[in-house]
């Protein structure tokens, strides 16, 4: 049976001004998986994330970590935040210290580790996102992409069990996006559950094990990428477009050029299928 690291049950939340943000959301995040959360701006992705590590308290409903409901006492929240890390969308609202190394050391120091352990964690995190050369740079000298990398290292250094990335690729150039996605792959292979939100359907399709789609504070649908992102009617309702690879695949199938085969998950798979076509 699948093991769920994070769960929400019938989660309701509204902003202080009364605008409803989440309307009864129940999701299950499987341990060790790569989950993508898709949805338009204002769908409630960030609000849901802030519930995952107890930064927001639901108006109604429950959040469970490892099957246990979150207890909103200060001490327990601190424990939860050691295990569930969030990388925020805007690195400028996350970086507070004057130098890169200092900023990354903040999390491990809060874990009450020894000085050597903090140093080791910081070095590992710097290496994981390939910014060892930036360690002594002041944060305000960095470019946006570099700040983004530091904000990821910030959370990696705490070695949480789940890392949540709020639109990690927004505003990044294609090569930084590629690097960051490769980093995610490595972190995930090391056993960390990863949840990310994005508008980029192609990226989610290539990367995710499981996809959850939000709309107006509700779950519109969830499932395996090749199933959920193939349904045209559903995608239209969600305001999303079909992944390019799936689109080409279905066009090839409609023209009876492809036999029934596995659905391609990335460009390489698709090209291989096309090269094998014999007319």
């Amino acid at each position, binding site marked *: 049976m699948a093991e769920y690291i994070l769960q929400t049950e019938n989660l309701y939340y509204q902003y202080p001004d009364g605008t409803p943000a989440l309307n009864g959301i129940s999701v299950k995040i499987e341990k060790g998986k790569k989950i993508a959360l898709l949805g338009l701006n204002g769908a409630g992705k960030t609000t849901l994330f*802030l519930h995952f*590590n107890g*930064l927001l308290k639901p108006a109604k409903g429950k959040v469970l970590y490892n099957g246990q409901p979150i207890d909103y006492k200060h001490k327990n929240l*601190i424990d939860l*935040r*050691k295990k569930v*890390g*969030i990388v*925020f969308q*805007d690195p*400028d*609202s*996350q*970086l*507070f*210290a*004057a*130098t890169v*190394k*200092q*900023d990354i*050391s*903040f*999390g491990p*120091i*809060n*874990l009450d580790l020894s*000085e050597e352990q*903090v*140093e080791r964690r*910081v070095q590992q995190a710097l290496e994981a996102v390939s910014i060892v050369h930036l360690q*002594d*740079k*002041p*944060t*305000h*000298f960095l470019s946006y992409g570099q700040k983004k990398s530091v904000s990821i290292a*910030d*959370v990696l250094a*705490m070695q949480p069990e789940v890392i949540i990335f709020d639109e990690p690729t927004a505003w990044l150039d294609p090569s930084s996006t590629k690097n960051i996605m490769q980093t995610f792959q490595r972190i995930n292979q090391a056993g960390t559950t990863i949840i990310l939100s994005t508008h980029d359907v192609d990226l989610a399709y290539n990367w995710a094990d499981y996809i959850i789609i939000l709309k107006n504070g509700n779950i519109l649908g969830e499932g395996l990428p090749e199933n959920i992102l193939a349904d045209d009617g559903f995608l239209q309702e969600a305001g999303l477009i079909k992944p390019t690879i799936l689109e080409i695949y279905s066009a090839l199938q409609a023209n009876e050029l492809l036999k029934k085969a596995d659905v391609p998950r990335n460009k390489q798979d698709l090209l291989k299928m096309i090269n094998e076509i014999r007319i």
Partner: protein
Amino acid sequence: MILIDKYAYCNKIQGISPMEKVTFSIGTLIICLAVNSLLVDGLVIALMALLLIFYVGIPSKFYCKMMFLPISFLLLGLLGIALDMSSQQSNFVSSLPLGKYYLGFTEQGLHTANILFFRALASVSCLYYLSLTTPIVEIIAVLRKAKMPELFLELMSLIYRFIFVLLETADKIYLAQSSRLGYADLKKSYSSLGHLISNLFIRAFKRSNDLYSALEARGYQGSLRVMEKKYKISSKNIFLIFIWLIILILTANIR
């Protein structure tokens, strides 16, 4: 301001312990203020300039510009000290008649102004030495060792970080406004500037909220502890600093 910050991080003596830099500049500053000697002031101004330009590697043009910054303030301020008004012309070295009274310089006034001028410049060059060689982070680290209250130090480091965030935000708003002709004439400029400032306040508030959530997410429990860089204190440098301070004190006694 930003250039100063840049030099503080990228200069030839980065590797030297901030403790030594602080001892050197603040020690000199204290002696400067405590003794009343033109000779000491002159010595300090000269040594700081030579060190900054040749040892630290600050471009001489930039340093001259920085030294001129306080001069305009100083001259205005000193005018008030040197000028005096009296009904007797004999009190003045040189004077202008103003009705029944005379406005002019007295010998005493000129002397005080002279001393103040050099003392101010000498003190400013001590502080320039500190700010051009030592990043704020390291000054904070030294203050922490000197047992300054933690709250004060955290405020210092947050303010420092957010000066740059605010400057950047203001810059972005300014660009967006001017690209839509927000600063085309004087009236529009005033109105745009007003919007910029009020918007900056709102954004600063929002940012501080965002920062708080981000800190909480990383286990913030009321204190901003971060790792500090380790430096070796060189006994040779400490020795030289003390020699220098002793020379200053001895010079002060030459009359």
